[in-house]
């Protein structure tokens, strides 16, 4: 008779609220250019969501706005036509064809940014100001307080990054922090078992360490590439965790 509140859209609205301090900081830095990129990303993403709602009865999600913000912040600097193409590819093939937010394997932001990064390799990657890294801290705290952010993923990644960086935060650049909180710890695409989450976070951290040591490119590309590979392996990590859990349970209960 009574229904609770933790449906998909509540989670999406909390994600949106957590993204507000980051968005405000970024807009403060970027000004009108950033604002127009964000507006374009929101409009294109919203159009595709609306189209899928009309044609396939797939309810739209407020999480699309968060994805649009991350695309606007981290995508390489390409022309408007390429930008629209990248966003469309990210939203349609990253999320909507799988059934919308919550049913996809990858975040549309990761797909869109990687599409633009590999499709237009000469485009310059954005460099995020240090303040944006700081702004992810209240975002992460808010998400942790509501239990939306899987803390094991965050802890796994931070442990690896801090240990590999020799107990300094050099590896945790603004782009890495942003990708960690909004792309890797996205509750819809992160691993869902306890062990799987630790491994997921640790894998992201390890990939960052590996790329930082051997790949001479912008921090944003490193962060999103690591997020892509970590998200792609999340189902495998879950499968490993469940196989282990079943082995332990068979041993204990016969």
């Amino acid at each position, binding site marked *: *008779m*009574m*229904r*609770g*509140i*933790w*449906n*998909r*859209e509540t*989670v999406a609205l909390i994600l949106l609220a957590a993204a507000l301090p980051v968005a405000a900081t970024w807009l403060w830095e970027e000004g009108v250019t950033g604002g127009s990129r964000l507006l374009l990303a929101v409009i294109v993403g919203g159009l595709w969501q609306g189209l899928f*709602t009309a044609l*396939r*009865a*797939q*309810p739209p999600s407020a999480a699309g706005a968060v994805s649009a913000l991350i695309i606007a912040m981290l995508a390489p600097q390409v022309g408007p036509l390429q930008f629209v193409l990248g966003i469309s590819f990210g939203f349609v093939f990253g999320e909507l064809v799988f*059934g*919308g*937010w*919550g*049913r996809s394997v990858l975040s549309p932001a990761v797909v869109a940014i990687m599409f633009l990064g590999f499709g237009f390799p000469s485009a310059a990657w954005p460099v995020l100001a240090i303040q944006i890294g700081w702004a992810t801290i209240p975002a992460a705290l808010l998400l942790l307080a*509501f*239990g*939306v952010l*899987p803390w094991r993923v965050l802890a796994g990644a931070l442990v690896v990054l801090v240990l590999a960086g020799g107990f300094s935060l050099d590896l945790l650049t603004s782009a890495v922090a942003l990708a960690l909180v909004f792309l890797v710890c996205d*509750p*819809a695409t*992160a691993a*869902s*078992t306890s062990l799987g989450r630790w491994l997921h976070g640790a894998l992201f951290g390890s990939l960052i360490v590996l790329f930082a040591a051997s790949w001479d490119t912008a921090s944003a590309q490193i962060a999103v590439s690591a997020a892509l590979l970590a998200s792609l392996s999340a189902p495998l990590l*879950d499968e490993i*965790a*469940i196989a282990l*859990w*079943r082995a332990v*349970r068979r041993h204990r*209960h016969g």
Partner: protein
Amino acid sequence: MGPEVVREDCAILGLRKRGLTVPIRTPLPLPTTPETHITAEAGLSLGPQMDLRVEPLVQLDDMVVQGQPILRDRRRPECIVTAPVSGRIIGLEIGAGRRLTSLVVATGDRLEPHIYDAQQARDEMAGGSGSDALRALLQGAGLWMRFRSRPFGRVPAAVARPAAIFVMGADTRPLAADPRLVLDGEAGDWVKLGLAALVRLCSGPVHLCQNSGPDIVPSMAGVTVSRVGDLHPSGLAGFQIYRHYPAEPDRPVWDISIEDVVAIGELLATASLPATRLVSVAGPGLRETRLVRCQPGADLRELCYKHSKPGQTVILSGSVIDGAPSRWLGYHDRQVTVLDSSNSRPQQHWLDAALRRASRPEPIIATAAVEQALGGLMPGMALLRALSVGDDEAAQELGALSLLEEDMALVDYVTAASPRFSDLLRASLDRIEANR
């Protein structure tokens, strides 16, 4: 089996405190002593899982005494329903497929309860071997139907031997009564007798689940004490079975509430069935919270109407998360929840409603709330995903066979899921059962 008592303190430092609190209010103060309230009419509302095909043992307008067998299942003679109260049968309707449509008993004068022949079972418990007389007594007196066998949640077969029995001495449903309240007076001795009877029925351990308070019974041979937390869903039999002794098709596990164990003890000691059941009547639709001893199948309108707030109210048999609107107290229910109508769903605009109905259901996002709603024990999201896509094999491997609909009620509440996971789990269990 030698004496074994295993203690598990889950609540050390609150580290393993798992579960959720459902925000529902009830008028204070909470009563601590029950009042007796025998309603003028009593009915029978069996759950759909009972699947009783009725053969009446009495006629309309017959006089019955409390505890007398009145209905029997045609295919399974071990399933017997007894009269909840002494009086006259004023309603007895049998519908299609000989399923019971309604049974109503009007309370008459207080008479001596029906007396069963418990001597043979007592002798068997004292010295004999086997459990034939005990089974015959429990089946004849209708207490056999109080057992629920997992997997699948049916009444166990007459000759079945469970691998374990879980006795639920704790109840963590929102606004539920503390089951310890049924253990006052002679019931303290009867519960020991009942537990001894369960040990005899069962080929493995009898798990007594209780909260962190003092021990319900001193250490007994064959009885293992399991401590459960205070937060829902840790007090549900499903999660305790899942944790300590997972049910399999070839390893059935039964569960029974402690009040029914007391009833078994009372039947063995006095040869009659208890006349009342402890029921908590609570919820935001009441002016005062009540704790009553009423007959099984009591009339919920009569229990509530003098104490309801003015205006429209909804009376649920069961808790706010797994109860259903009903006229009579449900067969396994020990609580009544009264909601005021503002808690029921508001009227939706027709366009909004049509759009929602037409759209595909939204998926569940793996938040901490979902994890806690499953007790934090299992790869919960994997189980929920297996249930939503109808992957019975995966659900079975993730432990769905230990669970029943009531165990999914908290997830349904927390996520407002549609379709409900309770229904998905029942459909999955039915398919697994049919394909065996």
